[in-house]
C-alpha cells in the first residue's frame, strides 16, 4: 500500500530521509555507524564484502556500498551523516562525498562553494525542471 506522494518528493536532487527510507535503510545505516570504530574500519578495509555480510542489509545496498554508489545509497535509505563515515573510512572528506553525489571533481565542487554555492534558481522543483 502506498501513500500519496509527499510534497518533499518534488525537491530535485534530494532524497529526504523520512521514516520510510529510515525503515528501509536501518541495517545499512547501522553498518555505516559501526565504521566509527577504528577496529571496524580496519576489518572492513581488509575484506569489504566479508565485513558487509555481517549486517543483514539487502544485496542491493551491499553492492552500492562496495561501489561507493553514493546517490544509490541515499535512494536505498542511507543517510548522509552515516554515509560520511564510509567516506572517512576511505580517508575522504564530506566535500569529496558531496562532489561525488553532484558528479563533479572535488576541486570543482570546492570552487563552486567558494563562489557562493549552488544557486536555488532552477533547483526548487522537479515539476519546474520537467523531471516529474
Amino acid at each position: 500500500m502506498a501513500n500519496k506522494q509527499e510534497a518533499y518528493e518534488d525537491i530535485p536532487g534530494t532524497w529526504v530521509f523520512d521514516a520510510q527510507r529510515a525503515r528501509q535503510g536501518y541495517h545499512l545505516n547501522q553498518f555505516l555507524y559501526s565504521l566509527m570504530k577504528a577496529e571496524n574500519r580496519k576489518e572492513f578495509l581488509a575484506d569489504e564484502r566479508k565485513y558487509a555480510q555481517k549486517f543483514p542489509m539487502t544485496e542491493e545496498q551491499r553492492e552500492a556500498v562496495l561501489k561507493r554508489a553514493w546517490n544509490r545509497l541515499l535512494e536505498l535509505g542511507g543517510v548522509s551523516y552515516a554515509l560520511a563515515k564510509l567516506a572517512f573510512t576511505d580517508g575522504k572528506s564530506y566535500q569529496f562525498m558531496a562532489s561525488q553525489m553532484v558528479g563533479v571533481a572535488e576541486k570543482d565542487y570546492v570552487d563552486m562553494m567558494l563562489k557562493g554555492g549552488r544557486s536555488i534558481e532552477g533547483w526548487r522543483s522537479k515539476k519546474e525542471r520537467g523531471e516529474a
Partner: protein
Amino acid sequence: MAKIIAGFGTSHTPAIGAALDLGKAGERYWAPVFAGYEKSKAWMAKAKPDVAIVIYNDHVNAFDFKLIPTFAIGCGAEFTIADEGWGPRPVPVVKGYPELAAHIVQSLVLDEFDMTIVNELQVDHGLTVPLSLAYGQPKEWPARVIPLAVNVVQYPAPTGHRCYMLGKAIRKAVESWDEDLKVVIFGTGGLSHQIQGPRAGLVNTKFDTDFLDDLSRNPQRLVDLPPLEYLREAGNEAIEMVMWLTMRGALGDRVEEVYRFYHVPASSTAVGHIILEAR
C-alpha cells in the same frame, strides 16, 4: 533567580572545528570565518554566563538508529567528546549542571514536552563547535553546559512552532530556579546547506538573511514557516535552523540584535551567527 540573558545562534559546521584543531584557523580559507567570531568571544568574555543551554543535534554519533529521540536533554555531570570517525576533538570535557537539568526536565514534562532524559551522553561537533566559536581554545569551558539534542536527521524534525514553544517553556523553567545564574542559550546549526544528492552545495543567502532579520523583527513568520520551506529553499540539512527558534522562544518577546556575521562557505555550509540580548 536564574535568568536567560541572551541567545547565541551559530552554525556548527564540523570543518570549522577541524580547522581550529589542526591549526588552520589562520589560513586564507578559514581566517574570515574565525575573524567573524572575534567580537563574539569578547562579548562572551564580558557576559560571563554561568550556564550555557545548547540546542544542537547529534549527527549519528551519540545516537545510532536504535533509538531516535525528538528532544533529549543531557542530565549528567559531564559529557565526553564523541569520536566521529577520526578521533575525538581535542577539546575539554563538557561539564554539566545535573541539578538544574533535573529541574528543567521536570518543568518541561509538566509543560507537556515529553523529554528523553540522557544521563550518559557523548557530544559531537554539533555542540562543541559552537563552544569553540564562543570561547576559543580554553583549558576548561568557562560555563557549565546543558545539552539539548533535537532530532533533525530523520524527517520530520519537530516543527518550528514546537521548537519555539519549547524555548518558551525552557525560559519558564530557568526563571523558576532559585539561584542567581546568568544563562545563555545557544541555537545551533544551519544556515542554508545541503550535503547530499545532486543538489548538494545549495546556498540561499536571501533565505538566510530574511531568517536572521526576522529573529528580532518578525519571529512569528519563522514560527509559522513549514518544514518544506526550509528543505526546498535552503537545503535538506537547513532544517537544523528550527533549533534557532528554541533559542528565540527562550528569550521572551523583546530582543535586541547586538551582533551578526554571515559568510559563505565553510565546507558546504553558509555560516550564520547572531547574538540576541533579551530585553
